[in-house]
């Protein structure tokens, strides 16, 4: 196993390439520009498809087409560009296509700025586009996880025929860290008996999200909900630290969890009993782990780089069993270890 120093955005590309991503469609926007730049060279070298689209709308629809044709395909962007992709994401969810979408978040609303942010939590886990659908949302907090989650996202998407969103941010995308690339097997592609590749020796197939027949859309919605329930039962991921003795439990994801972890360690060094829950899947959300941790006499402190989004899901999980507090900064403000420690 070798260690390499790598930027988060590049690690993401390499993870996707290792997973057998056959087509990448993108559009420039900071702070994710390393992704299309790296893919434009690597994908072409590997004889795979790279295309810089004319817009985010076009890029997500090119991904829709490539996934419909049965190959592993990805697009990436940052917050304003992800807003533009929401139309396509809704169709992809409705058509049940296994697309991988990456959001290297920046501040908002509007054009915001180019600094890292976690302001797109609501958009990522509550729908984003129109209609009643869910994305599987993975929140990496290191260069290593940018690689690993990109590698895992394609198989996860195919397993459930559901789009997967990797929700990163400008800090994780831009920072360099050592990365260990373990020799890994590409997960076997599940049988795709729905792809459009020409109806040779089989009846014609159709991919759609339009269900006009009486009761057809309701049936389709119920089918989707059943799938979402299965995903919720099987795919929740989170990490917990010191829940045995903590009287303050931090809850944070992504880059905020890196800071929270550091603050937890320095606080514990001064004798404070601090723990941490780090949701890794933001949807499905680790509600059970959080509910179990919400014991009387303890407080939960949610830390985010926004003004309070995930905290709403934490409160739903806690359901009044203990106090839930919030600490956050947005607009390019990065929560740091010292300020968080002094708050504890």
């Amino acid at each position: 196993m070798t260690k390499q120093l790598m930027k988060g955005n590049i690690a993401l590309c390499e993870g996707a390439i290792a997973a057998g991503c056959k087509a990448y469609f993108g559009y420039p926007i900071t702070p994710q520009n390393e992704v299309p730049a790296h893919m434009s060279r690597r994908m072409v070298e590997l004889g795979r498809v790279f295309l810089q689209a004319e817009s985010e709308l076009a890029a997500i629809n090119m991904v829709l087409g490539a996934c419909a044709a049965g190959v592993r395909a990805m697009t990436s962007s940052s917050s304003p560009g992800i807003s533009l992709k929401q139309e396509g994401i809704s169709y992809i969810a409705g058509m049940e296509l296994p697309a991988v979408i990456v959001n290297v978040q920046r501040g908002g609303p509007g054009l915001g700025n180019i600094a890292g942010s976690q302001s797109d939590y609501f958009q990522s886990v509550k729908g984003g586009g129109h209609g009643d659908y869910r994305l599987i949302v993975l929140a990496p907090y290191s260069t290593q996880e940018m690689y690993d989650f990109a590698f895992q996202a394609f198989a996860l998407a195919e397993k459930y025929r559901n789009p997967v969103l990797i929700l990163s941010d400008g800090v994780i995308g831009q920072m360099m860290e050592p990365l260990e690339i373990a020799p890994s097997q590409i997960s076997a592609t599940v049988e795709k008996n729905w792809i459009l590749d020409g109806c040779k020796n089989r009846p014609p197939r159709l991919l759609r999200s339009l269900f006009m027949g009486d009761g057809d859309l309701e049936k389709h919605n119920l089918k989707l909900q059943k799938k979402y329930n299965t995903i919720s039962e099987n795919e929740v991921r989170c990490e917990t630290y010191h829940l045995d003795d903590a009287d303050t439990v931090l809850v944070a994801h992504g880059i905020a969890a890196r800071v929270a972890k550091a603050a937890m360690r320095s606080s514990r060094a001064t004798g404070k009993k601090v723990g941490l829950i780090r949701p890794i899947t933001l949807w499905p959300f680790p509600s059970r782990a959080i509910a179990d941790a919400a014991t009387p006499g303890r407080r939960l402190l949610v830390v985010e780089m926004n003004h309070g989004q995930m905290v709403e899901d934490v409160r739903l999980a806690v359901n009044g069993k203990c106090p839930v507090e919030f600490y956050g900064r947005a607009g390019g403000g990065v929560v740091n270890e010292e300020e968080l420690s002094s708050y504890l």
Partner: protein
Amino acid sequence: MKKIYGRPESLKSTPHLYCPGCGHGIIHRIVAECIDELGIREKTIAIAPVGCAVFAYDYFNFDVTEAPHGRPPAVATGIKRVLPDRIVFTYQGDGDLAAIGTAETIHAANRGENITVIFVNNANYGMTGGQMAPTTLIGQKTTTSPFGRDPKREGYPFKVCEFLSALEGVAYLERVAVSNPKNIIHAKKAIKKAFNNQIEGKGFSLVEVLSQCPVDWGMPVAEAINWVNTTFMQTFPLGVYKDK
């Protein structure tokens, strides 16, 4: 007895839900005939638009995907780039191709994507009940231009073939009509050429078909056909706009 005419294999027997006198049925049929005659049915993937022809997937007897409104050229790009040996075509109306999807159309054309585009121009948004389209004629009344299209207020009819002819990536552009047997026979030739270009790898080919929409135009069928042959063609002259 020798069979000389029948339903093309590329067309299902599903009854069409298109309005009486609508041109879509004719256009579907000649597209299906071309695909049969070229022997490409089993390697064809179509992209249906949002609009009247969204139901094309119920009528064509080969693989079809839906696309968001205006995005078929981008979806076609995604399919064709990963399956370059398949035949990929979009079937789009004027609202889909020339209003909301203008950017996707222009850039797929400019990249010279090796796809075929069947562009059905009926001068209004048919599916939603006859609103003004980018191709609505000057003076034409629609549900959203009740006083007639006034260029001072709504601008001019968007001429797709003329516009795209300036782009280097484009291989073939022709405007045809399906308003009489002669025009239909010619339209079929143009559509066949557009598919043949793709088979030969020549690049982006688009056939614009002027189509009658009697119900939303508020005309009897014969009058609608006459309107295509006279008024519609004055603004949108038939002919080859590019043949590289």
